[in-house]
Protein backbone atom coordinates (compact mmCIF):
# COMPACT_ATOMS: atom_id res chain seq x y z
CA UNK A 1 0.00 0.00 0.00
CA UNK A 2 1.37 3.34 -1.02
CA UNK A 3 0.87 5.25 2.22
CA UNK A 4 0.57 8.67 0.63
CA UNK A 5 -2.65 7.86 -1.20
CA UNK A 6 -5.57 8.32 1.15
CA UNK A 7 -7.83 6.08 -0.92
CA UNK A 8 -5.43 3.14 -0.62
CA UNK A 9 -4.93 3.60 3.09
CA UNK A 10 -8.66 3.94 3.56
CA UNK A 11 -9.28 0.67 1.78
CA UNK A 12 -6.61 -1.13 3.75
CA UNK A 13 -7.93 0.27 6.99
CA UNK A 14 -11.45 -0.84 6.20
CA UNK A 15 -10.17 -4.32 5.46
CA UNK A 16 -8.10 -4.67 8.61
CA UNK A 17 -10.08 -2.99 11.28
CA UNK A 18 -12.16 -5.19 13.57
CA UNK A 19 -15.65 -3.87 14.10
CA UNK A 20 -17.44 -4.75 17.30
CA UNK A 21 -20.24 -3.52 19.49
CA UNK A 22 -18.90 -0.91 21.84
CA UNK A 23 -20.74 0.55 24.79
CA UNK A 24 -20.07 4.17 25.52
CA UNK A 25 -22.00 6.30 27.96
CA UNK A 26 -24.62 3.63 28.27
CA UNK A 27 -25.28 3.41 24.55
CA UNK A 28 -24.31 0.50 22.37
CA UNK A 29 -22.73 1.31 19.07
CA UNK A 30 -22.65 -1.47 16.55
CA UNK A 31 -19.87 -2.01 14.05
CA UNK A 32 -17.70 0.41 15.88
CA UNK A 33 -14.03 0.69 16.66
CA UNK A 34 -12.00 2.70 19.08
CA UNK A 35 -9.39 5.31 18.30
CA UNK A 36 -6.48 3.27 19.53
CA UNK A 37 -7.27 0.39 17.22
CA UNK A 38 -7.59 2.77 14.28
CA UNK A 39 -4.19 4.30 14.98
CA UNK A 40 -2.71 0.82 15.48
CA UNK A 41 -3.96 -0.31 12.11
CA UNK A 42 -2.94 2.83 10.26
CA UNK A 43 0.52 2.69 11.78
CA UNK A 44 0.77 -0.91 10.60
CA UNK A 45 -0.49 -0.08 7.13
CA UNK A 46 1.94 2.75 6.58
CA UNK A 47 4.72 0.84 8.36
CA UNK A 48 5.57 3.40 10.94
CA UNK A 49 6.13 3.32 14.66
CA UNK A 50 5.24 6.96 14.89
CA UNK A 51 1.72 6.94 16.30
CA UNK A 52 1.46 10.67 15.85
CA UNK A 53 2.04 10.32 12.13
CA UNK A 54 -0.56 7.58 11.96
CA UNK A 55 -2.97 9.77 13.88
CA UNK A 56 -2.42 12.62 11.44
CA UNK A 57 -3.17 10.33 8.55
CA UNK A 58 -6.26 9.07 10.33
CA UNK A 59 -7.45 12.62 10.75
CA UNK A 60 -6.96 13.21 7.07
CA UNK A 61 -9.38 10.32 6.55
CA UNK A 62 -11.94 11.51 9.04
CA UNK A 63 -11.69 15.02 7.64
CA UNK A 64 -13.29 13.54 4.55
CA UNK A 65 -15.92 11.90 6.74
CA UNK A 66 -14.67 8.42 6.03
CA UNK A 67 -15.49 7.67 9.62
CA UNK A 68 -16.71 9.76 12.47
CA UNK A 69 -16.84 9.81 16.22
CA UNK A 70 -20.09 8.25 17.34
CA UNK A 71 -20.75 11.44 19.22
CA UNK A 72 -19.95 13.52 16.15
CA UNK A 73 -18.12 16.03 18.25
CA UNK A 74 -14.43 15.37 17.82
CA UNK A 75 -11.87 14.06 15.42
CA UNK A 76 -9.82 10.90 15.62
CA UNK A 77 -7.99 10.44 18.91
CA UNK A 78 -5.48 7.79 19.86
CA UNK A 79 -7.61 6.54 22.72
CA UNK A 80 -9.57 3.42 23.62
CA UNK A 81 -12.40 5.41 25.13
CA UNK A 82 -13.24 7.25 21.94
CA UNK A 83 -15.49 5.31 19.60
CA UNK A 84 -15.87 5.66 15.86
CA UNK A 85 -17.96 4.27 13.06
CA UNK A 86 -17.39 4.20 9.36
CA UNK A 87 -19.64 6.35 7.33
CA UNK A 88 -22.28 4.22 5.77
CA UNK A 89 -24.46 4.92 2.81
CA UNK A 90 -27.62 3.70 4.43
CA UNK A 91 -30.79 5.71 4.13
CA UNK A 92 -31.71 4.56 7.64
CA UNK A 93 -28.67 6.12 9.15
CA UNK A 94 -30.08 8.93 11.23
CA UNK A 95 -26.87 10.74 11.96
CA UNK A 96 -25.93 11.46 8.39
CA UNK A 97 -26.90 14.86 7.12
CA UNK A 98 -25.88 14.56 3.50
CA UNK A 99 -27.17 11.89 1.16
CA UNK A 100 -24.98 8.81 1.10
CA UNK A 101 -22.37 8.86 -1.60
CA UNK A 102 -21.51 5.92 -3.76
CA UNK A 103 -18.28 4.98 -5.37
CA UNK A 104 -18.03 3.98 -8.93
CA UNK A 105 -16.54 0.55 -9.53
CA UNK A 106 -13.13 1.98 -10.20
CA UNK A 107 -13.24 3.85 -6.88
CA UNK A 108 -9.94 5.53 -7.43
CA UNK A 109 -11.04 8.95 -6.45
CA UNK A 110 -12.46 9.95 -9.77
CA UNK A 111 -15.92 8.97 -8.73
CA UNK A 112 -18.02 11.97 -7.92
CA UNK A 113 -21.61 10.89 -8.25
CA UNK A 114 -24.31 13.45 -7.75
CA UNK A 115 -26.01 13.07 -4.40
CA UNK A 116 -29.30 12.14 -6.03
CA UNK A 117 -27.84 9.29 -7.99
CA UNK A 118 -26.03 8.01 -4.92
CA UNK A 119 -29.18 8.09 -2.89
CA UNK A 120 -31.14 6.17 -5.44
CA UNK A 121 -28.50 3.54 -5.74
CA UNK A 122 -28.39 3.15 -1.99
CA UNK A 123 -32.09 2.52 -1.77
CA UNK A 124 -32.05 0.12 -4.67
CA UNK A 125 -29.42 -1.96 -3.05
CA UNK A 126 -31.20 -2.08 0.26
CA UNK A 127 -34.41 -3.38 -1.15
CA UNK A 128 -32.56 -5.87 -3.25
CA UNK A 129 -30.90 -7.69 -0.37
CA UNK A 130 -33.49 -9.51 1.69
CA UNK A 131 -30.90 -11.65 3.41
CA UNK A 132 -29.53 -8.59 5.07
CA UNK A 133 -32.94 -7.52 6.20
CA UNK A 134 -33.25 -10.79 7.98
CA UNK A 135 -30.10 -10.15 9.88
CA UNK A 136 -31.60 -6.94 11.16
CA UNK A 137 -34.53 -8.76 12.58
CA UNK A 138 -32.32 -11.32 14.19
CA UNK A 139 -31.08 -8.57 16.44
CA UNK A 140 -34.17 -6.63 17.39
CA UNK A 141 -33.27 -5.93 20.98
CA UNK A 142 -30.66 -3.32 20.48
CA UNK A 143 -32.00 -1.36 17.62
CA UNK A 144 -34.67 0.75 19.31
CA UNK A 145 -32.45 1.64 22.23
CA UNK A 146 -30.23 4.11 20.52
CA UNK A 147 -30.92 6.35 17.66
CA UNK A 148 -27.23 6.40 16.85
CA UNK A 149 -26.98 2.66 16.49
CA UNK A 150 -26.26 1.68 12.96
CA UNK A 151 -28.45 -0.91 11.42
CA UNK A 152 -26.22 -3.82 10.73
CA UNK A 153 -28.24 -5.08 7.81
CA UNK A 154 -26.65 -3.02 5.15
CA UNK A 155 -23.15 -2.93 6.46
CA UNK A 156 -21.55 -5.46 4.16
CA UNK A 157 -23.23 -4.02 1.15
CA UNK A 158 -22.65 -0.53 2.19
CA UNK A 159 -18.98 -1.03 2.70
CA UNK A 160 -18.76 -0.71 -1.04
CA UNK A 161 -20.93 2.32 -1.04
CA UNK A 162 -18.73 4.40 1.18
CA UNK A 163 -17.01 6.97 -0.93
CA UNK A 164 -13.32 6.46 -0.40
CA UNK A 165 -11.43 9.53 0.68
CA UNK A 166 -9.14 10.88 -1.94
CA UNK A 167 -6.01 12.92 -1.58
CA UNK A 168 -2.29 12.76 -1.23
CA UNK A 169 -0.74 12.80 2.19
CA UNK A 170 2.38 14.66 1.20
CA UNK A 171 4.35 13.77 4.32
CA UNK A 172 4.46 10.20 3.07
CA UNK A 173 5.05 10.71 -0.62
CA UNK A 174 8.17 9.38 -2.20
CA UNK A 175 10.97 11.70 -3.09
CA UNK A 176 11.19 12.78 -6.71
CA UNK A 177 14.76 11.58 -6.84
CA UNK A 178 15.08 8.01 -8.16
CA UNK A 179 18.16 7.47 -6.00
CA UNK A 180 16.27 8.24 -2.80
CA UNK A 181 14.93 5.12 -1.14
CA UNK A 182 14.35 3.65 2.27
CA UNK A 183 17.94 2.59 2.69
CA UNK A 184 19.77 5.08 0.56
CA UNK A 185 20.33 8.57 1.81
CA UNK A 186 18.82 11.22 -0.41
CA UNK A 187 21.26 13.62 -1.99
CA UNK A 188 19.04 16.53 -1.09
CA UNK A 189 19.47 18.00 2.34
CA UNK A 190 15.88 19.18 2.29
CA UNK A 191 14.37 15.81 1.50
CA UNK A 192 11.68 15.09 4.12
CA UNK A 193 12.78 11.46 4.11
CA UNK A 194 16.28 12.35 5.15
CA UNK A 195 15.84 12.28 8.90
CA UNK A 196 14.21 8.89 8.69
CA UNK A 197 16.97 7.60 6.41
CA UNK A 198 19.64 8.94 8.68
CA UNK A 199 18.20 7.26 11.71
CA UNK A 200 17.86 4.01 9.81
CA UNK A 201 21.45 4.26 8.65
CA UNK A 202 22.52 5.20 12.17
CA UNK A 203 23.78 8.53 11.01
CA UNK A 204 23.71 11.59 13.13
CA UNK A 205 21.41 14.26 11.73
CA UNK A 206 23.27 17.41 11.03
CA UNK A 207 22.07 20.28 13.15
CA UNK A 208 20.10 22.86 11.31
CA UNK A 209 19.05 20.57 8.51
CA UNK A 210 15.87 18.78 7.78
CA UNK A 211 12.58 19.36 9.49
CA UNK A 212 14.07 21.05 12.52
CA UNK A 213 15.23 23.89 10.37
CA UNK A 214 11.75 25.31 10.29
CA UNK A 215 11.86 25.83 14.02
CA UNK A 216 15.04 27.81 14.09
CA UNK A 217 14.89 31.25 15.51
CA UNK A 218 17.43 32.65 13.08
CA UNK A 219 15.01 32.75 10.19
CA UNK A 220 12.90 35.15 12.20
CA UNK A 221 15.75 37.17 13.54
CA UNK A 222 17.37 38.11 10.29
CA UNK A 223 14.24 39.64 8.91
CA UNK A 224 13.70 43.31 9.43
CA UNK A 225 10.00 42.88 9.79
CA UNK A 226 9.89 40.86 12.98
CA UNK A 227 6.43 41.13 14.43
CA UNK A 228 6.21 44.22 16.55
CA UNK A 229 5.40 43.39 20.11
CA UNK A 230 7.32 40.15 19.95
CA UNK A 231 8.38 39.58 23.50
CA UNK A 232 11.92 38.70 24.45
CA UNK A 233 10.59 35.94 26.64
CA UNK A 234 9.13 34.26 23.55
CA UNK A 235 12.38 34.39 21.63
CA UNK A 236 14.61 32.48 24.00
CA UNK A 237 14.50 29.00 25.43
CA UNK A 238 12.88 28.18 28.72
CA UNK A 239 16.24 27.37 30.26
CA UNK A 240 17.44 30.88 29.57
CA UNK A 241 14.26 32.42 30.89
CA UNK A 242 14.52 30.38 34.05
CA UNK A 243 18.14 31.32 34.55
CA UNK A 244 17.57 35.04 34.96
CA UNK A 245 15.92 37.05 37.70
CA UNK A 246 12.60 38.82 37.33
CA UNK A 247 14.37 42.13 37.22
CA UNK A 248 16.58 40.91 34.41
CA UNK A 249 13.52 39.70 32.51
CA UNK A 250 12.01 43.16 32.71
CA UNK A 251 15.29 44.65 31.60
CA UNK A 252 15.48 42.33 28.62
CA UNK A 253 11.94 43.21 27.63
CA UNK A 254 12.84 46.89 27.80
CA UNK A 255 15.88 46.37 25.59
CA UNK A 256 13.79 44.34 23.20
CA UNK A 257 11.25 47.12 23.01
CA UNK A 258 13.95 49.66 22.17
CA UNK A 259 15.17 47.44 19.36
CA UNK A 260 11.87 46.61 17.76
CA UNK A 261 10.68 50.19 18.07
CA UNK A 262 13.73 51.29 16.13
CA UNK A 263 13.02 48.61 13.55
CA UNK A 264 9.46 49.84 13.19
CA UNK A 265 10.61 53.43 12.92
CA UNK A 266 12.99 52.71 10.08
CA UNK A 267 10.52 50.40 8.42
CA UNK A 268 7.85 53.08 8.46
CA UNK A 269 10.19 55.59 6.89
CA UNK A 270 11.26 53.07 4.29
CA UNK A 271 7.66 52.26 3.63
CA UNK A 272 6.97 55.86 2.81
CA UNK A 273 10.05 56.04 0.66
CA UNK A 274 9.85 52.76 -1.24
CA UNK A 275 6.55 50.97 -1.20
CA UNK A 276 4.48 54.09 -1.32
CA UNK A 277 6.33 55.51 -4.29
CA UNK A 278 5.56 52.34 -6.21
CA UNK A 279 1.88 52.99 -6.08
CA UNK A 280 1.78 56.71 -5.92
CA UNK A 281 4.46 57.70 -8.35
CA UNK A 282 2.39 58.89 -11.32
CA UNK A 283 4.99 57.52 -13.73
CA UNK A 284 5.01 54.09 -12.15
CA UNK A 285 2.51 52.55 -14.53
CA UNK A 286 4.15 54.16 -17.53
CA UNK A 287 7.10 51.85 -17.02
CA UNK A 288 5.00 48.85 -17.81
CA UNK A 289 3.64 50.05 -21.11
Amino acid at each position, binding site marked *: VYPALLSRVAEALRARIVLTDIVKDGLTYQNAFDGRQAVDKIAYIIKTTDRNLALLLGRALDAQKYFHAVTYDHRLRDSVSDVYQFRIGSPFHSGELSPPPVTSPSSQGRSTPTPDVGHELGITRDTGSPSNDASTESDPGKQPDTSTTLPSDTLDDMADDVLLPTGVFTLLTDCYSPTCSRDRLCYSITCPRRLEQQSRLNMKPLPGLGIKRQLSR*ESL*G*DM*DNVEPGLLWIH*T*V*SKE*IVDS*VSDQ*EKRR*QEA*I*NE*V*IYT*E*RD*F*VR*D*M*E*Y*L*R*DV*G*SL*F*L*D*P*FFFCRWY
Partner: protein
Amino acid sequence: MQVWIAPLNAQDILPEARRADFIEQVFWNIHDVIGVNTRLRDALNKRQKSYAVIEGIADIFLDIVPLFAPFVSYGSHQLYGKYEFEKEKSSNPAFAQFVEVRFMASHPAFWF
Protein backbone atom coordinates in the same frame (compact mmCIF):
# COMPACT_ATOMS: atom_id res chain seq x y z
CA MET B 1 9.21 60.07 1.84
CA GLN B 2 9.09 59.57 -1.86
CA VAL B 3 5.41 58.90 -1.35
CA TRP B 4 5.25 62.60 -0.85
CA ILE B 5 8.20 63.96 -2.69
CA ALA B 6 8.06 62.21 -6.03
CA PRO B 7 4.46 63.12 -6.91
CA LEU B 8 5.05 66.65 -5.79
CA ASN B 9 7.87 66.84 -8.25
CA ALA B 10 5.98 65.19 -11.01
CA GLN B 11 2.49 66.61 -10.90
CA ASP B 12 1.16 70.07 -11.38
CA ILE B 13 0.19 70.36 -7.79
CA LEU B 14 2.80 72.94 -7.03
CA PRO B 15 3.87 75.70 -9.38
CA GLU B 16 7.25 74.73 -10.68
CA ALA B 17 8.78 78.04 -9.66
CA ARG B 18 8.59 77.31 -5.95
CA ARG B 19 8.39 73.53 -6.03
CA ALA B 20 12.00 72.71 -5.21
CA ASP B 21 12.12 75.25 -2.44
CA PHE B 22 8.89 74.01 -0.95
CA ILE B 23 10.10 70.42 -0.90
CA GLU B 24 13.29 71.43 0.78
CA GLN B 25 11.51 73.48 3.40
CA VAL B 26 9.01 70.79 4.26
CA PHE B 27 11.08 67.63 4.07
CA TRP B 28 14.34 69.22 5.03
CA ASN B 29 16.93 66.53 5.76
CA ILE B 30 14.64 63.53 6.14
CA HIS B 31 16.98 61.35 4.09
CA ASP B 32 19.76 61.93 6.60
CA VAL B 33 17.43 60.99 9.41
CA ILE B 34 16.63 57.72 7.67
CA GLY B 35 20.33 57.08 7.16
CA VAL B 36 21.22 57.49 10.83
CA ASN B 37 18.31 55.37 11.97
CA THR B 38 19.19 52.61 9.55
CA ARG B 39 22.65 52.44 11.08
CA LEU B 40 21.21 52.36 14.56
CA ARG B 41 18.71 49.68 13.61
CA ASP B 42 21.36 47.48 12.02
CA ALA B 43 23.61 47.73 15.06
CA LEU B 44 20.74 46.86 17.39
CA ASN B 45 19.65 43.95 15.22
CA LYS B 46 23.15 42.59 15.19
CA ARG B 47 23.36 42.81 18.96
CA GLN B 48 20.04 41.08 19.38
CA LYS B 49 21.01 38.24 17.10
CA SER B 50 24.33 37.72 18.85
CA TYR B 51 23.06 37.32 22.40
CA ALA B 52 20.10 35.61 23.94
CA VAL B 53 20.48 37.72 27.05
CA ILE B 54 21.79 41.11 26.03
CA GLU B 55 24.25 42.63 28.44
CA GLY B 56 23.53 46.15 27.30
CA ILE B 57 22.96 48.45 24.36
CA ALA B 58 24.37 51.66 25.78
CA ASP B 59 27.60 51.30 23.80
CA ILE B 60 25.63 51.26 20.55
CA PHE B 61 23.95 54.51 21.47
CA LEU B 62 27.23 56.04 22.58
CA ASP B 63 28.59 55.28 19.13
CA ILE B 64 25.62 56.58 17.22
CA VAL B 65 24.62 59.65 19.20
CA PRO B 66 27.45 61.79 17.83
CA LEU B 67 25.79 61.22 14.44
CA PHE B 68 22.44 62.52 15.62
CA ALA B 69 22.97 66.00 14.22
CA PRO B 70 20.32 65.41 11.50
CA PHE B 71 17.70 65.09 14.25
CA VAL B 72 18.66 68.46 15.66
CA SER B 73 18.56 70.03 12.27
CA TYR B 74 15.25 68.40 11.43
CA GLY B 75 13.69 69.25 14.76
CA SER B 76 14.78 72.85 14.77
CA HIS B 77 13.41 73.33 11.29
CA GLN B 78 10.18 71.47 11.82
CA LEU B 79 8.10 74.55 12.64
CA TYR B 80 9.23 76.30 9.49
CA GLY B 81 8.32 73.28 7.48
CA LYS B 82 4.92 73.06 9.07
CA TYR B 83 4.35 76.73 8.35
CA GLU B 84 5.17 76.29 4.66
CA PHE B 85 2.98 73.22 4.52
CA GLU B 86 -0.06 74.85 6.10
CA LYS B 87 0.35 77.95 4.02
CA GLU B 88 0.36 75.95 0.81
CA LYS B 89 -2.59 73.91 1.93
CA SER B 90 -4.74 76.94 2.60
CA SER B 91 -3.79 78.78 -0.58
CA ASN B 92 -3.58 75.91 -3.08
CA PRO B 93 -6.71 73.71 -3.41
CA ALA B 94 -4.92 71.17 -5.63
CA PHE B 95 -2.29 70.72 -2.98
CA ALA B 96 -4.90 70.47 -0.23
CA GLN B 97 -6.61 67.67 -2.10
CA PHE B 98 -3.32 65.94 -2.75
CA VAL B 99 -2.55 66.00 0.97
CA GLU B 100 -5.99 64.71 1.82
CA VAL B 101 -5.63 61.70 -0.47
CA ARG B 102 -2.04 60.95 0.46
CA PHE B 103 -2.76 61.31 4.11
CA MET B 104 -5.48 58.72 3.97
CA ALA B 105 -3.37 56.41 1.87
CA SER B 106 -0.19 56.44 3.84
CA HIS B 107 1.13 55.98 7.29
CA PRO B 108 0.62 59.14 9.30
CA ALA B 109 3.44 58.45 11.72
CA PHE B 110 5.82 61.09 10.42
CA TRP B 111 3.54 63.80 9.34
CA PHE B 112 4.34 66.52 11.87
